[in-house]
């Protein structure tokens, strides 16, 4: 059978068409499969990305790190070289950028610059990237909790893309929601951690505070215990300090009742009693001083002071004590000093006597050196350096406390109530300074006192004198030189007249006395007319009938060249000028020490070339000869002590009478007399109280009623 050729083409064509359709279908199916596979793969990758991002976000504590990771993961999943992800942050209300490492900072910096800043940019930061980034970083264009992939570069086409297909947008939106939840949980966790940290901090702080409080309480308790112990020790010490001289007083007083005693023995016993009494008084003075400072009753009286002289005077005063122990006492001026500076000389002297005295007291061999210098123009620094036993580090703070000594054993062997340094430091602080200490146990100590001073602009600064030494003392001081001349001592207080006369007579002077200015004027004029004039007059300035100011003015009119030395219990600033304005040649403030009086007398005496005993600035060999020379100070005072006591007794009666009669003028007058004599006879606390009473009485001030009984009580205790 034969085939019909005409049928075949039709079949073939149909078959071909069918085949083509099949092939197309297959191709389409394959494409669909490919698309499906791609989508599945993409979806899988996306899920992996999501899972990875979730894991990473969860492991990051800060959103920025999570966003940067997201940007990297997106680029990877979308097959881009890199991608920038902008996250619409609903918390900060500002889009946050996730970007590959380093790109973020660069883009943020670039975004802040004008577009054509002329900056050399790399390709991926040029044109479209930067524009897209700037566009996306506008917060209004990025919805909250959404992610916008700003731009990405395809490695295949090297073109920049933004993500435009809906699937990706939908996925990114879902991812944004997940991310928001993750961020929320991260933030929550962070909040919790912050809260926990804060609580921990609070607990730690509270614990520390509690520990500090416990420590404070412990140290307060220890301080209280220590204070109680110190006071107990102080009382024990005081008891010892008081009982020892009291035993001497009572014992020798009993011995004096023996009528058979010779004059020399009686004198010796009386001297012992007096010495013991003075020691007791110094203890009381210390205690009163401390009490006055602590109650704020002590005032500072800055007056023009020649610190050079004050230092050398102190050296002269204390060289005897140093010499007694075979110690050198040197004074040096390390810098130039103004010839005069305003400072409370009395308080400064008190501080230095304490420090230098202490150094001498505790140093057994070697040297005590005092070095003065100025710091700038308003601070005076004085170092007291000794080669004593030093003070242990743990005692160094304590020794400035009242009732403390470096070593309780020291108080037994060296005496003292342990108040001196406490007083000295308080005084130094009162003078605008302080006392510091450096000490090396077994080697020595340095006490450095600084005080505030005022120096006049036109003050003369004297260059630092050379180191004083034995061969060339800076200012030789003659204590027992014979002085010649006729002297008139004018004072309304008999005891002062007697004391000054006694000292001057012993120095070799011919002394006459007057009890007020009028009498002095008459005597001076008469002596001048008789061609037998006085060589000098020591004139008290406050006296009845005619005071020293008036008397001086009148004497000047008759005998212009006669040296008149003002003696006054005033030590207020300006008193010296008042005296000099009245015509006085010089000025001495009470209490007046014997060396000062003799030095002044020598200065104005006719002959001053009598052999003088020079008090050396270095310690002389151990000898008591020179001590005896200075002992005359005590001798004169001691001789007149009974008179002083008797006078004070009278003053008490007069004062009580004036108090009852509310006679403030009389009270002021009596207080003035007490002020001068008490200071001279070693009762500074009475003198200070008397000065206060005088001041209040003159002002007729109400606090007088409070202070007057104090003065009376102190006077009664003294007698």
């Amino acid at each position, binding site marked *: 059978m034969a085939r019909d050729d005409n049928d075949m083409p039709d079949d073939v064509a149909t078959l071909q068409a069918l085949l083509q359709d099949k092939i197309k279908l297959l191709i389409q199916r394959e494409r669909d499969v490919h698309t499906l596979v791609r989508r599945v793969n993409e979806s899988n990758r996306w899920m992996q990305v999501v899972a990875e991002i979730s894991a990473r976000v969860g492991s990051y504590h800060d959103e920025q790190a999570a966003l940067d990771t997201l940007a990297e993961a997106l680029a990877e999943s979308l097959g881009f070289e890199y991608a920038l992800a902008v996250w619409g942050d609903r918390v900060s209300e500002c889009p946050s950028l996730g970007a590959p490492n380093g790109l973020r900072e660069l883009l943020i910096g670039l975004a802040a610059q004008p577009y054509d800043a002329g900056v050399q940019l790399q390709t991926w930061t040029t044109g479209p990237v930067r524009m897209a980034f700037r566009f996306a970083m506008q917060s209004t264009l990025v919805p909250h909790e959404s992610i916008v992939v700003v731009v990405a570069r395809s490695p295949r086409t090297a073109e920049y893309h933004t993500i435009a297909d809906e699937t990706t947008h939908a996925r990114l939106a879902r991812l944004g929601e997940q991310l928001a939840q993750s961020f929320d949980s991260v933030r929550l966790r962070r909040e919790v951690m912050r809260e926990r940290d804060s609580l921990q901090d609070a607990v730690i702080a509270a614990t520390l505070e509690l520990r500090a409080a416990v420590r404070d309480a412990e140290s307060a308790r220890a301080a209280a215990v220590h204070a109680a112990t110190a006071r107990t020790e102080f009382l024990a010490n005081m008891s010892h300090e008081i009982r020892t001289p009291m035993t001497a007083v009572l014992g020798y007083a009993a011995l004096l009742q023996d009528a058979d005693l010779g004059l020399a023995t009686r004198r010796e016993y009386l001297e012992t009693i007096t010495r013991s009494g003075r020691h007791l008084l110094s203890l009381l003075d210390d205690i009163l001083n401390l009490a006055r400072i602590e109650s704020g009753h002590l005032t500072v009286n800055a007056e023009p002071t020649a610190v050079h002289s004050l230092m050398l005077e102190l050296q002269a005063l204390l060289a005897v004590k140093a010499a007694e122990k075979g110690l050198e006492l040197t004074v040096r001026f390390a810098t130039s000093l103004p010839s005069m500076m305003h400072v409370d000389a009395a308080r400064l002297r008190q501080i230095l006597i304490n420090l230098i005295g202490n150094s001498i007291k505790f140093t057994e061999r070697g*040297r005590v050196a005092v070095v003065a210098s100025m710091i700038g123009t308003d601070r005076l620094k004085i170092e007291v*350096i000794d080669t004593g036993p030093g003070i242990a580090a743990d005692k160094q703070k304590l020794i400035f406390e009242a009732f403390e000594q470096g070593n309780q054993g020291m108080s037994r062997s060296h005496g003292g109530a342990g108040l001196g340094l406490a007083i000295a430091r308080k005084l130094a602080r009162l003078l605008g300074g302080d006392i510091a200490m450096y000490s090396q146990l077994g080697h020595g100590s340095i006490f450095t006192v600084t005080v505030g001073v005022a120096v006049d602009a036109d003050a003369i*600064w004297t260059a630092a004198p*050379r*180191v004083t030494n034995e061969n060339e003392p800076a200012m030789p001081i003659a204590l027992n030189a014979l002085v010649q001349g006729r002297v008139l001592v004018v004072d309304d207080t008999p005891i002062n007249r007697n004391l000054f006369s006694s000292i001057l007579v012993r120095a070799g002077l011919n002394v006459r006395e007057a009890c007020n200015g009028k009498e002095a004027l008459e005597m001076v004029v008469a002596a001048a007319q008789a061609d037998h004039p006085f060589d000098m007059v020591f004139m008290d300035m406050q006296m009845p009938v005619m005071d020293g100011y008036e008397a001086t003015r009148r004497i000047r009119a008759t005998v212009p060249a006669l040296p008149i030395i003002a003696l006054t219990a005033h030590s207020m600033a300006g008193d010296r000028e008042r005296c000099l304005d009245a015509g006085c040649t010089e000025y001495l403030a009470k209490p007046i020490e014997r060396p000062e009086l003799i030095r002044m007398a020598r200065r104005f005496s006719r002959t001053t070339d009598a052999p003088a005993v020079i008090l050396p600035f270095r310690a002389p060999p151990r000898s008591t000869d020179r001590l005896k020379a200075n002992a005359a100070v005590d001798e004169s005072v001691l001789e007149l002590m009974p008179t002083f006591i008797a006078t004070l007794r009278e003053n008490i009666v007069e004062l009580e009478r004036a108090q009852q009669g509310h006679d403030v003028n009389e009270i002021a007058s009596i207080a003035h007399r007490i002020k001068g004599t008490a200071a001279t006879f070693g009762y500074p606390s009475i003198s200070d109280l008397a000065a206060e009473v005088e001041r209040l009485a003159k002002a007729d001030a109400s606090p007088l009623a409070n202070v007057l009984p104090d003065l009376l009580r102190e006077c009664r205790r003294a007698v």
Partner: protein
Amino acid sequence: MTTAHPPQAAVGISTRADIRKAVAEAVNRAGGGADAVLCIAYAGVGHDQNELLNQLKIALPGVPIVGGSSQGACVSGTSIEAERFLAVAVLSGDVKVRIAHVADMRSDERKLGQALAANLGPPPQGAHTTLLWYDPLCGRNVKDLLVGLSDGGYDAVYGGATGQPWDRMVATFQYADGQVYGQGAVVVVLEGLTPVAELTHGAEAIGVALTVTKADGNTVLEIDDRPALDVWCEQLGVLPERNVEMTSNWALGIVPPTGTTYEGFFTRAPFAFDLERRALVLQAPIPCGSRVQVCIRTQSAVFGGAEAMGQRLQAALVGKQAVLALGFECGARPAPFLGGELAEREMRQLEAKLPPALPLIGMYAWGEIAPAGDVSEFHNFTFPMCVLCQP
């Protein structure tokens, strides 16, 4: 002239780390300090300076202490460069001491010099010697300080800049008035002692002659109309930002003024480099128009110069009663340049020319002061030696 208590001196050194022991050892070696009128002290900055001074004050109560920190010291044949050392010279006898100091040098240097002179008072009529120590790190013009002192009558000054170890500059210290200062200057006048002094510089000129064309105080701004730092680096073949700090071997030499007897150039070593202004900062000025030449320190120049200086001193001391030799040797001469055995060799070589058993104390200074001609001059790389003699 022989006096009742002729001036005497003794020296001591200690390298103990414990300050108390160091002080005790140095002072004991210096005779204990009895009757002392002055203590010159040099110490390493490794010691607590305040503690050191307090210990010295206790060991020598009331004795003025002057001097300062130093890179090192030499005491009678011993040369030491260490973090912790103490060298002292204790003077006693008929010597009057005047001391003045400024706590802070950072103001008008000439006025400071005048103030120091005023504090010292008028210069003594008789024999005297003036010594100076100062802080070099505050970058001040020391020459003007010397001019200020000269205004006050103190023409011939010997001394040195206080120092620290040869390392990064941190701080130096000066001692005066029982205190330690960090930026101060101390002047001491010793009445009753006359100086017999010589100096040697130890550097040789190299390179071409140059001219300083612009300067601002102690800063050289331009040399031959070009930035001074560039010229400096070009001459030495270094790069400003990389290794200019390694040029401490070199200095600028200046031709001394006409009539000045001197063995070569005055030397000024750059103390700092101002990279911003491309300038050289010195401790004393080089005036505009000055001819300068780069100098380099060499061992032959150091040893040769020291030998020659010793011979000159030997001749000058004939018939004199020498009391104490004070050396102010530049800190650039010992380690890392000489140092150790070589530094001691130089010192022994010099001591051999001095009277036997003459106490000697020297510091390694960061700037030296000694008169050249009639005026006090600032130097670098030098070694002035001042022998204090009875008049």
